[in-house]
């Protein structure tokens, strides 16, 4: 059963895993405060400066699943997987203009979640619930996918893929994660992120230096990848793959980048990492420094092509990176890389469960079940929910086919972008009415889900060639658009039209000055 285990790699892996476990528990004493207060447990007391925020958000956004999934798309179909690069380029100028405002108003009014802001800004419990529900719904499969990333590297260590004990290592890892998140709250992933991010940088830089040296430069790598895509198309004429984009991939490439960028900072875990910052200036500084991780992600994407050049042949593209690492590195360093990826799953999984727990406590339980909660009760409920969310994610992996989690993750992005109008427009104007945004949200959710409902599988993009007029424009490529973007455009139109005729406005507890932060050093 464990005859195939690579013990050298496993020992290195377990060493680093044990190290971050100790850090996770010790983190409760870091910047010591009363963790029976939700702002302390769930937001680190908003005391993370520019450096800590950089490590935390970097560790939180560039997840283990990303490290496995992006190169797997590149391995399978090539250039299209690189959409992650324009996606992460366009996001930072946008964040620069919006997040300091959200941080300022949240700091001033004590908001912990997007739902808190919506409730204060629009005075509309229905919209608050919609925002909270969407966040939790989209986060659950995302946590499950972190487990997929972790499981891929555990399998690569040689542990069995089938049988009664196949999921045992994963379950143990996740129980440990659940315990220190329960104890230390956001401080645990913030502290572990330092270790994780440094490990990932070492691992990626090593790959980018070693692989081209061993394979004779980048030229042969792209040539080998080109041949692999040609072979794929030869065996399946319907397949689209290549070192550059095919004409029908251009529309999806662009719109997927835009839609994904709009969705990312609507996720509870992204906002949790942001609101934990100590100042608006710390956030601005991060919009200039976080692109370092985007560059890293671009290099990680290229590993999909390096795998072809190194002769890695796998049926599941998600095994491409682990197998590449085993092939090019000595066992001990492969173990180090696998530990980096697995720890890379722990940080986002922890922040996601904390973000979902904060959201459930503040925007579902407090307004609808018990409005008289004390801070200690809030903190206790959030800790409990963080455990439940993690058990749920583990159950998804243990009992439901992985494909289902992948499909839900795809839909999660389509759903998450539907709260964009309420949150982002709300930072700049109160022209939109709460109920109008709620109806727009519902329209976007239904349309986005319906568009994604393919006949055989869930689909991400929608060809528009059949629509009169739209299909007539010759843009040099077939127009196809990411469902999330299409749905949010309809969402915005509906919200705009209804707001124009809606006369009653809910209470707004915020003032114009709340959105401006004093520009002091981070």
């Amino acid at each position, binding site marked *: 059963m464990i005859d195939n285990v690579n013990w050298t790699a496993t020992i290195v892996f377990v060493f680093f895993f044990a190290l971050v476990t100790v850090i996770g528990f010790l983190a409760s004493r870091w910047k010591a405060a009363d963790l029976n207060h939700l702002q302390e447990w769930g937001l680190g007391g908003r005391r993370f400066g520019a450096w800590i925020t950089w490590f935390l958000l970097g560790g939180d956004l560039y997840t283990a699943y990303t490290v496995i999934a992006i190169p797997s798309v590149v391995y399978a179909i090539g250039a299209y997987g690189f959409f992650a690069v324009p996606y*992460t*380029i*366009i996001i930072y*100028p946008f964040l620069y*203009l919006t997040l300091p405002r959200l941080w300022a108003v949240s700091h001033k009014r004590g908001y912990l979640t997007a739902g808190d802001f919506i409730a204060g800004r629009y005075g509309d419990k229905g919209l608050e619930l919609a925002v909270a529900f969407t966040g939790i719904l989209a986060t659950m499969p995302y946590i499950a996918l972190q487990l997929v990333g972790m499981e891929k590297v555990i399998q690569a260590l040689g542990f069995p893929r089938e049988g009664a004990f196949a999921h045992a290592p994963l379950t143990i890892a996740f129980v440990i994660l659940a315990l220190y998140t329960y104890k230390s709250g956001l401080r645990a992933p913030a502290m572990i992120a330092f270790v994780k991010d440094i490990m990932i940088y070492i691992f990626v830089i090593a790959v980018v230096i070693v692989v081209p040296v061993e394979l004779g430069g980048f030229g*042969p790598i792209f040539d080998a990848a080109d041949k692999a895509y040609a072979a794929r198309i030869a065996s399946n004429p319907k397949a689209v793959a290549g*070192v*550059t984009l095919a004409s029908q991939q251009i529309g999806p490439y662009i719109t997927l980048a835009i839609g994904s960028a709009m969705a990312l900072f609507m996720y509870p875990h992204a906002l949790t990492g942001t609101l934990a910052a100590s100042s608006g200036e710390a956030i601005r500084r991060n919009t200039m420094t976080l*692109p370092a991780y985007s560059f890293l992600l671009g290099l990680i994407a290229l590993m999909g092509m390096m795998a072809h050049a190194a002769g890695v042949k796998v049926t599941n593209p998600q095994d491409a990176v682990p197998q590449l690492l085993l092939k090019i590195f000595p066992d001990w360093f492969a173990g180090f890389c696998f530990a980096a990826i697995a720890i890379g799953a722990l940080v986002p999984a922890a922040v996601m469960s904390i973000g979902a727990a904060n959201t459930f406590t503040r925007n579902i339980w407090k307004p609808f079940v018990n409005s008289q909660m004390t801070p200690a009760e809030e903190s206790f409920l959030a800790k409990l929910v963080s455990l439940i969310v993690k058990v749920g994610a583990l159950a998804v992996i243990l009992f439901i086919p992985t494909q289902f989690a992948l499909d839900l993750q795809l839909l999660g992005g389509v759903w998450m972008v539907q709260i964009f109008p309420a949150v982002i427009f709300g930072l700049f104007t109160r022209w939109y009415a709460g109920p109008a945004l709620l109806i727009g949200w519902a329209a976007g959710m239904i349309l986005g889900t319906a568009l994604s409902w393919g006949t055989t599988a869930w689909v991400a993009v929608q060809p528009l060639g059949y629509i009169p007029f739209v299909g007539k424009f010759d843009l*040099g490529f077939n127009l196809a658009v990411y469902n999330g973007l299409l749905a949010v455009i309809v969402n915005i139109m509906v919200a705009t039209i209804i707001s124009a005729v809606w006369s009653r406005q809910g209470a707004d507890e915020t003032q114009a000055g709340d959105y401006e932060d004093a520009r002091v050093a981070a």
Partner: protein
Amino acid sequence: MKYVLLFAPCLIALAAPLYNSIDPTLAGVPFFYWAQLLLIPVSAICIFIADRIAKARP
């Protein structure tokens, strides 16, 4: 000027047909890849300059 600096890199990043080619290659890397990778630090520097401008003229 601040907004030009913030939006110009985004527009270039989204103009996929502009950079969707193999040539010119850089050290064996096709244009498609090195151009996008290069745009990442360029966009970060643009945000930095935009922020300097915003600080100078609040």
